[in-house]
């Protein structure tokens, strides 16, 4: 009598296939990567998306140091460098050449190292929607002090027992510059005995704008924001983003 779902036939006009760039720099050796792939049709048959192989990928920092990213022979479309790690207060230029014809670039910068002060938790009994009446779960809070001298943008990434939370917890200092920021991780259920690792990621405005618009584009359903493509910081005929991150981490284990 009430609501129901069904699959319907909606013909779509296929847009041009676009080059997708996902470039992530981290401040730990060898953890940075650049992924190049093509977009596909909405109703495509294959489950994967064509990787872009054989491209030249390099990152040059403000001092002129060039790091070449080589394609991983086991993962086509993934470009790695075993020695590259981001450093504070540097600019980075990403440069990509594909088939000698298409060239892409992006400029990013890093700020001071962020410092994650502490993690706390409070117990919730009967926790939230769908929880049983007497089960205990935990709401974890992170706390850090924003750097008052710079304009900062953050992503907080929780990992519960090693598994990443797909939600985007984004924060910036527009109205809290220099202040202590404390906030909860709402999205993942944390059970007694779980290990929670929190990454505090500092990034620049270009990467932040991309991730916050990406987060909106991923929210699906009747009550979502008006659909729009994320705001890319890549120059050239491609979409995606380049983010040079500085990361501080803390871990906490929930009581049994």
């Amino acid at each position, binding site marked *: *009598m*009430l*609501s*129901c*779902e*069904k*699959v*319907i*036939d*909606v013909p*779509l*006009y*296929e*847009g*041009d296939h*676009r080059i*997708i760039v*996902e470039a992530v720099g981290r401040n730990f050796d060898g953890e940075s990567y650049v992924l190049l*792939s093509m*977009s*596909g*049709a*909405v*109703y*495509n*048959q294959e*489950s994967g*998306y064509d990787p872009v192989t054989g491209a030249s990928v390099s990152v040059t920092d403000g001092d002129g140091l060039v790091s070449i990213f080589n394609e991983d022979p086991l993962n086509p479309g993934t470009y790695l460098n075993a020695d590259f790690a981001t450093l504070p207060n540097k600019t980075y230029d990403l440069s990509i050449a594909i088939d000698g014809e298409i060239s892409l670039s992006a400029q990013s910068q890093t700020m001071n190292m962020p410092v994650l002060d502490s993690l*706390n938790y*409070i117990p*919730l009994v*009967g926790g939230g*929607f769908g929880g049983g*009446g007497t089960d205990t779960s935990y709401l974890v*809070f992170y706390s850090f002090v924003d750097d008052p001298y710079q304009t900062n943008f953050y992503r907080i990434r929780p990992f519960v027992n090693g598994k990443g939370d*797909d939600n985007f917890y984004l924060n910036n200092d*527009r*109205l809290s510059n220099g202040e202590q920021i*404390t*906030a909860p991780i709402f999205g993942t259920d944390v059970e007694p005995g779980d290990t929670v690792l929190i990454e505090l990621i500092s990034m620049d405005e270009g990467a932040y704008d991309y991730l916050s*618009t*990406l*987060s*909106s*584009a*991923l929210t*699906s*359903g*009747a*009550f*979502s*924001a*008006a*659909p*729009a*493509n*994320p*705001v890319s910081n890549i120059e050239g005929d491609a*979409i995606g*983003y380049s983010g040079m991150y500085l990361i501080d981490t803390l871990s906490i284990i929930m009581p049994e």
Partner: protein
Amino acid sequence: MKDVETGEDLIGARILVDEMPGTGAITNVYGFFSLTFKEPGTYNLTIKSIGFETQNVEVVMDKSQTLDLEMKPEGKILNAVQVTGEKQDENITSAEMGVDKIQMKDIDNIPVLFGEKDVLKTIQLLPGVKPAGEGNAGFFVRGGSADQNLILLDEAPVYNASHLLGFFSVFNSDALKDIKLYKGAAPAEFGGRLSSVMDIKMKEGNAKKLGVSGGIGLISSKLTVEAPIVKDKGSFIVSGRRTYADLFLAFAEQEQAQNSTLYFYDLNAKANYRLGKKDRIFISGYFGRDVFGFDDQFGFDWGNTTGTFRWNHLYGDRLFGNTSVILSKYNYELGFGAGENRIQIGSEIQDINVKKDFDFYINSNNTLSFGANVIHHTFRPGEIETGDDFGITLNDIENRYSIESAVYVSNEQKIKKRWNVIYGIRFSNFTQIGPGSIFSYNDLGEVTDTTEYGDWEPVASYFGAAPRLSLNYKLSTNSAVKASYGRSYQFVHLISNTTASQPTDVWIPSSNNVRPQVSDQVSVGYFQNFLDNQLEFSTEVYYKQMDNVIDYRDGAEVTLNPTVEGELLYGIGRAYGVEILLKKRRGQFTGWVSYTLSKTERQFDEINNGAWYAARQDRTHDVSIVGMYNITERITASATWVYFTGNAVTFPSGKYVVDGQVVPYYTERNGYRMPDYHRLDLGVTLNNKKTKTVIDPESGEEKEVPKRFESSWNFSVYNAYARQNAFSVDFRENAETGQTEAVQIALFKAVPSITFNFKF
């Protein structure tokens, strides 16, 4: 002018003077009229009002006098012969165009969702008015957005006219007397919204005797009590309604569902009293609330409160004045958690309005209206309260204040015998005032400056002059041509970045950053009646241009954002269309067919690469067919069929992977259409016998006398052929095949309903 049975004032009744053709008067919203006769003598007045028997009254005019008239409601029409020959040609003679008037009798017999008679649902069956979507009480008029409709209940604005996420409206039709929707150029006494004015008047209450009526239904019940305070001098009416979907939750298995609440209620109350021959006061109010709570983990409630105090005063024979003081408030509150771990977020908009209006019946050819009003707006966009254990400090979003004021003058003039013209102008001013920390933004939406303002200090001021003009030219006794032009300003805007309207949408005022919206509309129409005024035909063509319309940056964050003004983009819009209406108003079978062909589009430099794109509410074809048939004296059947082509919507044209997740890729804005929508509703009303047999004590014979207690049963089905109409369409990966598919969610299949109504 009143209804003889209840003493209710009759609005819009016409008084014609047989000896002075082409002149006459129309009662105003308080049932008042004034006629000037040039020479003394005896005159025949013909008095007409839709739904009432036409009357002829002879008056001897030798001096000024007061005439109190009462009209008798029409009985039910059972066969074609009974249709009276009197001309009900109001649509031909009136200069009003782009106006839809709903009589309470039309609503009684239309089947609607869950058997509730709903004013807002009925309005959406008329041409030019489109529903916002399945399960949504908002509506769009001539291509405008949902916040461009000024909804007034006894002059108080109602900011959110829907209950339960839009399945019901806040208007309990048992308490209402008259509803008028202005789609085109509204009269100069109205202003503040671009697309329409919905003017709703509550009943005064039966001034002759006690009346109780009510209904008991599957989902909700209501009760109305009305009675005189002093017979024929004053009366009151109290009307309440409540749903009880949550009573069934008590039987749920899950303990948390048992502790959950889901209901809404409305309360309308009004009293009036005549202080003498020249004065009358009214107090009316509305209070309603929706409450949703899940166990004690989550609570959400919202609602409107309105209160109006009015004083009618007659200054001499021809000048009628009214003073109103009006309060209107809409707020919502969200709560998470409980006790010291809770967080509560509240938001509110509050208006205080003082108004003075005059109707001056200069002579039989001219009625002048003029007046002024001042509104003080308070906006509380977000107030946050947390329990002590919560541990985060979240700041309130600062309040905003403004003053909106207007003066207007307008004249309705009859020229020769064929022209009826309404012309007027409304001057309005909107000033944002302190106290507050006022932000300025650059083109990218970043805050560049913050300035402190003190109490009542002006921050920004906007001034607008809005002319209004309506012309009616009578081609013959049963046909007319009309044209109109009007300009409107809108100073408050609803921020909603979603496809469905939500109770958490926030109203913001114009400011140093947000300019008022402006629209200009022209329309032309042709009206003709057939078959002795039984059949009405009308067609109107309109073109509307809008400036400073608001949309949002891609991915804008509009919830609880203190700098939400930086997320807004400004552009232009245009809407045009043709509306056709064929209506059979009298007879055993009544109903109407309405068809609208229209287009509404927007253009913003930052959206869709600056190209024009269809507005979300653009629906090319819109058809409504409504029929009501009096089968016998006790049985009435009704059917409604609605069809419209789907909203403009943005669907992806590709997809890709980033951050391990599949992301849709969009090309143009609103380039696709939702699936077509159509639905059939059926209903039948069985009236229980109105009379009972008694033995006459004198003659010993049996006779029929009317029963004091009247009752009826209503059975209805919403969506009788159970079509799954799309509420939303999502693109998802099928968990088994990994393929992307388009998944449609539909809200309702067939929904039956039974209601028992009574009256005594």
